[in-house]
């Protein structure tokens, strides 16, 4: 699929030859599209931010819903960082969210101050991530999924059975939230704004990471780990770092969770919860960071809204996941990207169409120099340049063999022999 490939016909505007738009109208359209390309992302982001701030003013059901979405989104985005970029899909995220939450709750139950409790919660999650990471990075692909599933289940089991520490099924409630100076999280509005702020910070951090050389290395990891190793990368180390980052941010989500809900119980960490996070990522679009945030929105809506009207909403959720995997593996964000590609195609067409060799060869619109470092080639929203499915593969709706989201990696057909990196040179 090339830049000039999309035959989006702009109502029969004639091409006027290489580099020359045919009419004033065409020229204007071209100008608008070109100018708007770098702006769509930030503008959309700003609009969403403003919307959220407004919605979070009140204390009602909508606010609660949004808070849930934000907290889960953090965990989902972290999972995407690990799964969509490094290719390590973890079925144990809920476990780490729980650890963060329980860490805070148990600390407070033992009379630590709220801030200390936050420190302890995050500390425990980090320590656990560092230790478990050593084991987790020894396997890849399907084995990794299985290991993380086991981890998640074991953590849940601990929460459930170590009654002395976790109060078992009853869960632990948290009543006192941290406050420092003017920032008193016991105040509802302050708490809500803080959650939004943390979400924004984590999201931007993760997006920044994906655009860094490290992020590029993760994509290389997912694409062809052996090659990366031959290029001098210590792939195990890279996986480990990605793991620790993902686990830590999920722990952050856990801390926020327990403050928002003022309660943590084992249910938050059970198998179903783990599956939900993976669902958020797949629905939203593996490898896009923002996509899974959207996925979190959808899943929370399923859970909270749909469940009111449809008693078999879980069946629906499962079927939706199956449908997405079958029909649109790039998820939601895959659709957004496809729109972006359409726009690029229109731009190319208006600039003179496939007659211009450069447009046919690359994905850059003809007539523009290769983008200066800093601007990205693909125009879909804030994720430009970030995702591995950066225009790769066929457009939206491609079958399972299409989008790089699920298949463009050693995880795909036949190559996914479980095993280890270390075991490569017996």
């Amino acid at each position, binding site marked *: 699929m090339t830049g000039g490939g999309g035959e989006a016909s702009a109502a029969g505007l004639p091409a006027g030859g290489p580099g020359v738009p045919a009419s004033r109208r065409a020229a204007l359209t071209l100008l608008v599209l070109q100018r708007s390309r770098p702006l769509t992302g930030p503008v959309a982001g700003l609009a969403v931010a403003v919307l959220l701030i407004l919605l979070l003013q009140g204390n009602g059901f909508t606010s609660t819903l949004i808070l849930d979405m934000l907290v889960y989104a953090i965990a989902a985005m972290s999972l995407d960082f690990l799964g969509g970029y490094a290719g390590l899909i973890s079925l144990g995220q809920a476990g780490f969210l729980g650890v963060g939450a329980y860490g805070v709750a148990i600390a407070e139950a033992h009379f630590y101050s709220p801030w200390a409790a936050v420190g302890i919660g995050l500390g425990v999650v980090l320590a656990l991530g560092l230790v478990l990471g050593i084991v987790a990075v020894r396997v890849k692909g399907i084995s990794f999924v299985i290991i993380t599933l086991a981890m998640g289940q074991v953590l849940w089991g601990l929460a459930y059975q170590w009654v002395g520490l976790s109060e078992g099924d009853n869960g632990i409630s948290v009543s006192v939230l941290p406050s420092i100076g003017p920032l008193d999280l016991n105040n509802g509005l302050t708490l809500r704004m803080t959650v939004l702020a943390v979400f924004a910070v984590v999201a931007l951090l993760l997006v920044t990471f994906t655009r860094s050389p490290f992020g590029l290395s993760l994509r290389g990891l997912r694409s062809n780990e052996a090659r990366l190793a031959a290029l001098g990368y210590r792939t195990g180390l890279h996986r480990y770092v990605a793991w620790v980052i993902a686990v830590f941010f999920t722990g952050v989500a856990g801390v926020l969770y327990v403050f928002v809900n003022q309660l943590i119980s084992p249910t938050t960490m059970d198998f179903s919860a783990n599956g939900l996070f993976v669902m958020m990522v797949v629905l939203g679009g593996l490898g896009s960071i923002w996509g899974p945030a959207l996925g979190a929105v959808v899943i929370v809506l399923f859970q909270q809204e749909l469940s009111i009207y449809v008693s078999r909403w879980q069946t629906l959720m499962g079927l939706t996941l199956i449908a997405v995997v079958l029909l649109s593996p790039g998820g939601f964000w895959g659709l957004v990207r496809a729109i972006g590609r359409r726009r690029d195609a229109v731009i190319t067409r208006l600039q003179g169409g496939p007659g211009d060799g450069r447009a046919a060869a690359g994905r850059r619109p003809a007539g523009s120099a290769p983008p200066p*470092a800093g601007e990205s080639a693909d125009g879909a929203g804030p994720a430009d340049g970030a995702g591995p499915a*950066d225009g790769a593969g066929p457009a939206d709706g491609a079958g399972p063999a299409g989008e790089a989201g699920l298949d463009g990696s050693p995880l795909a057909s036949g190559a996914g022999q479980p095993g280890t990196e270390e075991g490569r040179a017996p």
Partner: protein
Amino acid sequence: MTAVPADARDGAASPGDACPALAADHLCRRFRTVTAVEDVSLRVAPGARFGIIGPNGAGKTTLFNLLSGELRPTTGSVALFGRDITRMRPYRRAALGLGRTFQITRVFSDLTVLENLTLALHGLSPTKLSLLRPWRSYRSMTAEAAEFAARFGLAGRLGAVAAELSHGEVRELEVLLALALKPRVLLLDEPAAGLSPAERVDIQVLLRSLPPELTLVMIEHDIDLLRMVVDSAAVLHLGALVAQGPIREIQDDEQVRELYLGRAAAGRRPAGPPGAAPRDHAPGTPPEGGGGA
């Protein structure tokens, strides 16, 4: 076994030489019941252009895997500029100056050419672990990548996803990735496999334009290409070295010709499968080596 006397001849180093660029000593690799590489010893002088030929299944790629670290030898050792690297993993060998390409191209197919090259350029730099600066902002690196691509004919393709490239371009990219690390020794595994005659010329030009200080070891079936690029060669058959010496001699060697052309003369038939004749080498022949993997 045609033992070519190991005196300094067109790049094949002799034991008396100062430090060979790459040396293999009695390398052996067994997989349960199969011996893929048997007692192979090589010395390649710095700056040499060395070829490795042999029929399919002769163990050439396995040998490369042993040299570059994808596999550990059952016995024997490998040394790079005198330094024992037998126990080192691929990334460490890369850091020491050993580069390699793969017979089944291993480029990052879902990344763009620019991204591929950038990854390679960051490979030996601590910046690869950098988290906060966008990789595109490393202007010197991206410029270098662009210049690299331009020098080797991929200028207009920087934005193309590797999966979109033609086969010839992919193989070029494969070589470029290895070159980006500025290796001192480069192992090329069948760089011309599956290429059309025109593309072969391109590859040949690329290979001949490589800096003379770079030591080159190349597996190839295409005898013509070898002749243009390589000074001396070793012949592998069923995992063992059967001949070694200047390329002309190898070409004229009876035993080698038998191996490739499978002469039907009774008693002179080679033991193993004769393999494809070099000129008839069909593109896309399935790979050998790797112990049946």
